[in-house]
């Protein structure tokens, strides 16, 4: 039987690496210290594979063909060297990934998959801090949070639950950690770029920290829209919460609104 050993959710704002100098110094430092703590948690959990719920930023998909959830099934996947991030080739666990897709099909969950996914900062930024040697296999599940319409938050939560069941029932004896990236409120590229919804952010973090996700899984698209297009990334957090619902959450980083980085910086673990 496989085992879920850790859940991690973290901000992935690109200026964390792309423009570190524009954040207030002490607050920026606390974010990097948060990533240090996450790396320590991952190291101590010693996972055989990390399942990363993440999203892309017009790197792979066009509006002409948009999967709701797409699993990386290649032997490895390249990262985009953007925002001062390295060009890395992230090893995967293709056997695990393909068995996951089969398991999902057998359990009424139709996942898309691809052997050619390229990982932008949405995945590459957190991994550069959590596994800087890129020595832990990572299976990425990209969720569509860019093009409307998008899968429901409830579906993302169910996806996390499904993958955790797969780990326990059909993933051999692997130790598996989950990672969710992005969020919370922010606007990107439009006339509200740089704005955030602090009230939403604080409410969201409090809900996650409570370990009770009932209010979050009921969020509809119009409820998320008040926090900006970037807030759609909370689907990645909800997937980790679903995967780790048996574990209590712990807030590792709580920095509401960092000017210049255009988001709040939150990090949570489940173990």
């Amino acid at each position, binding site marked *: 039987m496989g085992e879920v050993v850790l859940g991690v959710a973290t901000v992935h704002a690109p200026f964390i690496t792309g423009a570190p100098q524009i954040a207030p110094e002490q607050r920026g430092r606390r974010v990097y210290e948060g990533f240090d703590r996450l790396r320590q948690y991952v190291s101590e959990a010693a996972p055989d594979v990390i399942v990363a719920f993440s999203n892309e930023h017009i790197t792979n998909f066009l509006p002409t063909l948009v999967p709701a959830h797409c699993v990386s099934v290649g032997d490895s996947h390249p990262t985009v060297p953007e925002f001062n991030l390295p060009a890395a080739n992230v090893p995967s666990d293709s056997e695990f990934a393909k068995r996951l897709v089969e398991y999902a099909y057998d359990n009424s969950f139709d996942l898309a998959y691809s052997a050619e996914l390229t990982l932008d900062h949405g995945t590459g930024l957190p991994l550069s801090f959590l596994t800087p040697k890129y020595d832990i296999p990572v299976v990425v599940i990209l969720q569509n949070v860019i093009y409307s319409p998008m899968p429901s938050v409830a579906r993302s939560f169910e996806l996390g639950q499904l993958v955790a069941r797969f780990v326990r029932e059909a993933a051999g004896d692997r130790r598996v950690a989950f990672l969710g990236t992005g969020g919370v409120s922010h606007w990107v590229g439009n*006339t509200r770029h740089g704005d955030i919804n602090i009230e939403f952010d604080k409410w969201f973090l409090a809900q996650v920290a409570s370990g009770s996700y009932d209010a979050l899984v009921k969020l509809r698209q119009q409820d998320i829209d008040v926090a900006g297009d970037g807030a759609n990334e909370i689907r990645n957090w909800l997937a980790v919460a679903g995967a780790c619902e048996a574990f209590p959450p712990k807030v590792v980083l709580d920095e509401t609104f960092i000017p210049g980085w255009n988001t709040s910086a939150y990090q949570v673990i489940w173990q």
Partner: protein
Amino acid sequence: MSSHEVVRVIRDIQRQRLFDVFDQDRAAFLARYNLTEDERAAFLENDYKALYDLGCHPMAVLFFSQANKVPMAQYLRAIGAPPERVREFEKLMG
């Protein structure tokens, strides 16, 4: 209107690191894509407002401005962001 094709151009420029090829001969590069005349003109003139108004995904328009090394404040001014937001980014990013 083919805003999907506009997004395709920007994705290809960004993700295949083709900005130099694009910038060397924009007309030739754009000829590979099924664009309207308005869209083609917007690319040729770095008209972010036009791309934005034509329905291109705002994230893609932002990426195109970044490929052109346009400061954030200048980009926000171009697409019609409120003056206070433009000033905020001028102050933050110089």
